[in-house]
């Protein structure tokens, strides 16, 4: 149990609570993600994948139910503690707005370390640079982020998500905006990080290709997890 990176118990999420247009999007999600797991989250558009991911990533709170990150109960934490836990335990990769364009590639990767504070300068620099080197992007380190191609930017974004050596990386359609080749590159990179460091990944995707490359597939339909072994719905 303690080895679970992520555990959800009866998580529900409604929007516009208390108003006439109140709608429940997630209807009691029970889900566990073990350490080192590499999972895909699939499902039709509007099924609540991003909503679920935002809750898992502590960007949003569930309307009811419990969420545990590395064994920590999160419902009682205030905004400050949630932010701290998010910074340390979770890395994000988004589909759009991959990097902050005002910063260089290296600064983007270092940003979570700078935000966290307390790391010696040399450590921060080395860790960020090692990540860029591993991704073959070191020659871009001092370029502004928007000078990089989409695929390069997304790889830098993955590097940034890994900078804090989080237990879990949540990626919301990380390859949705990329051509097939770049998409494969980014996906392979995430697989390799997972293999080498044991970081858990949960990747939201519409691509069956990517879903097949994952160790586990979680399917969300109409705000509910389709039980494992059930016939996957055609997307």
């Amino acid at each position, binding site marked *: 149990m303690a080895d679970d990176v992520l555990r959800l118990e009866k998580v529900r999420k409604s929007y516009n609570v208390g108003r006439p247009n109140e709608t429940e999007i997630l209807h009691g999600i029970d889900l566990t993600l073990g350490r080192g797991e590499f999972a895909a989250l699939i499902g039709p558009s509007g099924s609540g994948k991003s909503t679920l991911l935002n809750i898992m990533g502590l*960007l949003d709170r569930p309307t009811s139910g419990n969420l545990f990150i590395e064994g920590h109960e999160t419902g009682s934490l205030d905004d400050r503690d949630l932010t701290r836990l998010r910074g340390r335990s979770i890395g994000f990769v988004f589909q759009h707005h991959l990097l*902050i364009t005002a910063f260089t590639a290296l600064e983007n990767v270092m940003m979570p370390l700078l935000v966290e504070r307390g790391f010696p300068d040399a450590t921060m620099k080395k860790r960020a640079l090692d990540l860029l080197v591993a991704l073959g992007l070191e020659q871009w380190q001092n370029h502004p982020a928007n000078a990089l191609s989409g695929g390069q930017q997304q790889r830098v974004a993955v590097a940034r998500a890994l900078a804090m050596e989080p237990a879990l990386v949540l990626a919301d359609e990380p390859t949705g905006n990329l051509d097939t080749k770049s998409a494969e590159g980014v996906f392979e990179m995430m697989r390799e990080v997972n293999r080498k460091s044991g970081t858990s990944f949960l990747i939201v995707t519409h691509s069956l290709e990517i879903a097949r490359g994952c160790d586990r597939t979680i399917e969300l339909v109409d705000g509910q997890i389709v039980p494992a072994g059930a016939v996957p719905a055609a997307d």
Partner: protein
Amino acid sequence: MNRWLPFEWIAALRFLREGRMQTLFIISGVSVGIAVIVFMSALLTGLQANLTKRVLSAQAHITLQPRDEVARPLRLGGKDLELAIVQMPLQRVRSIDQWQALMRVLQDDPAVVAVSPVAAGSALAVRGDATRAVSIVGIEPDSYFRIVRLPDNIVAGTVRLSSRDIVIGTELARYLGIGVGDRLTLTAGARTSGALTVTGIFDLGNRQVNERYVYVPLRTAQSLLDLIGGVTSIELTIADVYAAETVARRLQPMTGAAAYSWIATNAQFFSAVQAQSLSSGVIRLFVALSVALGIASVLVVSVIQRSKDIGILRAMGTSRGQTLRIFLIQGALIGLIGAVVGSALGAGGLLVFHDHVRQADGSELIPLVLERSLFVAAALLATLTGVLAAMAPALRASRLDPVVAIRG
């Protein structure tokens, strides 16, 4: 590699740099505002210093004179010293009683810098056929020159004042047609001084003074005014010119004499100065206000433009407080950089003004007063204004819902 600044500073600097045009325009706007404030402040300081200097060139900060009303005995500092002031019989020129004792008391007062006795009265200056009504000022040169800087304002001769010498103003010299080395006679009532030699001619920058005042040794004035051993006033210089009225009010009961501060005797001048300060203060306030509104509006737009960046930063573990500070720092930097550029512009403008706007005779209209404290104040004020102006946008940024910002 250089050391990394705290994260908020890096983000603030990079955001400003990426903002290019926006940043450039708002800093220019702030600079212009600060330049106006610096220019006006320095000009006003110069103007006031100039006027004050002119007024004080021939006048002591505080003058003690005999009281008009019935005086009563007065105790000073417990039982040690008792100065009895008894009303004197009416006479043409009245002396201050016990003035030597009074002088000693005043010299020991912490607010007082210099004390000098003066015997003054009216007389006629006679030179051949020409006569002119004058005000005799009988002085002890050593102490008096610490109050009125006559030696600094001598245009001909020296301020030597031995018993048969006299120093007169430029206007009087012209009227009587005399120069250094010439003689003139003073008569007051039935008394006359005998021939006095003009040893110096002064220009105190004030036409009336140059025309009416003549300086003679104290003894000469005393005998001419039938005031042997007496003085008509005690003149004081104090440490803080602008505290003159307060000090005068304090000295009055203490000395039993009537104390007049230069502020009270120049009340009109002071109300003019005050009106000037007030109007310029109002103008500066509104300039500062528009600077603040400018900074606020630019940052509000920036927060909206950067909402996705803010969302990413929040997802990466940036706290609300850090987000708040990123924008407060931007406000502070805009204010500070604007202040530096604006101060340079204002000082430059002042130099140009000083060089090109002159009096008819080519002398400076207003002295150039560029105090470091003005620039420090401008920088502090602009930085503070920037921070305050950034408050609303920064709060807005810190309250952005990262989910909404990222979905954007």
